[in-house]
């Protein structure tokens, strides 16, 4: 069901844990949906020096978190802001349809974290977290 790339990032996730000296953090998702993603950033001069994540979720949620941290590490925050869920999916060689939402989650977590950094600088950027309420109704 998952590509090799997904399985690689799931079983050997990069940048796991809480950065000791992060200066921005973003969290999206909720327990009801079964996914919570938190991204920690250490930003210096608008450059993402270091990044890490903590995720409660399925294999795809862990893999998308992991790849997202790789994709933005060393980037300028404005470039990181352009990260799309499509890029996440492509970097993982694809995701099953039911797991697309995890890539959206990863994109949104990155954006939330950068918004947190910008906010501290007095800049407000809007984030639309579709995944905060994406669950199907319980039956």
């Amino acid at each position, binding site marked *: *069901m998952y590509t090799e790339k997904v399985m690689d990032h*799931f079983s050997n996730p990069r940048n796991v844990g809480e950065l000791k000296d992060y200066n921005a953090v973003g969290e999206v998702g909720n327990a009801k949906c079964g996914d919570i993603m938190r991204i920690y950033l250490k930003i210096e001069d608008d450059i993402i020096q270091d990044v890490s994540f903590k995720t409660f979720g399925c294999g795809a949620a*862990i893999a998308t978190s992991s790849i997202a941290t790789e994709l933005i590490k060393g980037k300028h925050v404005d470039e990181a802001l352009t990260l799309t869920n499509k890029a996440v999916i492509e970097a993982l060689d694809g995701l099953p349809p039911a797991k697309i939402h995890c890539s959206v989650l990863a994109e949104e977590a990155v954006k939330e974290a950068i918004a947190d950094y910008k906010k501290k600088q007095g800049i407000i950027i809007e984030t639309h977290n579709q995944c905060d309420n994406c669950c199907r109704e319980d039956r």
Partner: protein
Amino acid sequence: MMNNKNIYLDHAATTMVDNKVLEMMLPWYTEHYGNPSSIYSIGRESKQVIENARQTVADIFNCKKSEIYFTSCGTESNNWALKGIAYANKSKGNHIITTNIEHHAVLHTLEYLGKHGFEITYVPVEKNGIVDAEKIRQAIKKETILISVMFANNEIGTIQPIEEIGKIAKENGVLFHTDAVQAAGTLTIDVEKMNIDLMSISAHKFYGPKGVGVLFVRRGVKIDNLLHGGGQEKTRRAGTENIASIVGLAAALEKAVENMEEYNEHIRKLRDLTAQEVIKRIPETIINGDLEKRLPGNINFSFKYIEGESLLLFLDMNHIFASSGSACTSGSLDPSHVLLALGLPHEIAHGSLRLTFGWDNDEEDVETVVSQLVTIVQRLREMSPLYNK
């Protein structure tokens, strides 16, 4: 430390076909393939073996041969029972009572009936995953035509008070259906003593083949057909009979019942050992569902702060095959409706693991699984934003 032997711990999802059972099925594919509805000898032969199978099943559940109908699976049996009773008895009433932990084959069928003029009452189970029979009684009203309560739950293994509910149904002149798919072959079932009017079973849960089931329908019960067509199964269930699978179902059930005590002892021992070790070695673990009134081979854990699918994937990478909730829904985004029915919060309902034991497991498997679980749970917790060690 990698584990290289396959360890199958998902016997509630499905079982391998027993070799002896398969052997008995084989002649009916290539040698004795006659259509049982035909009048010539090789057709009569097929007919005879089906009638023998029917007798075997009837004897086991203490009913008449003519009350046993073969179907294509547990799902069909449930659909037939519920829709068949609903539509045939509509003039008497439109109210059906069930619980909130039934299998989807019951819940989704009732949901469909709910959209077609029927009123469904979902009696909530208690915190231990067992329904209070008195609450079923209280839900009965003038329009009630059917009570459907599963014999044992597929996720948490809790055994429902079937005999009590049967008595209540009888006292109130209401029909009683039980989905016994998880119970058949493991628990003793007497439809007479338990006042069961309709009962579903499925062969692949007790080392029989997939794609064959039974619906028991008590004589005199008014039920519409679900599959209309030829005159098979006394005109109640059309479709050319799946002879080999029917032979397999009866053989597997017979064998299961013969070895029931030994089997239950075997799986109960492994299950109890697993539960004990896991609780001892993994903190913040919950066991879901009643510990006593429970299928002997079932255990269901919630490991706080982690999610079930990633747990299953790590187990799979170590050749351990287990499930989170029911098989049909693993891979879906919904948390288990059964665990939610127990009152668990969502994040805990998402973190469940079901282990169900079988003939092919031994104590070494238990040790492997427990030690893998210790490692994996710790690892996932360290990744989890919900966990603060």
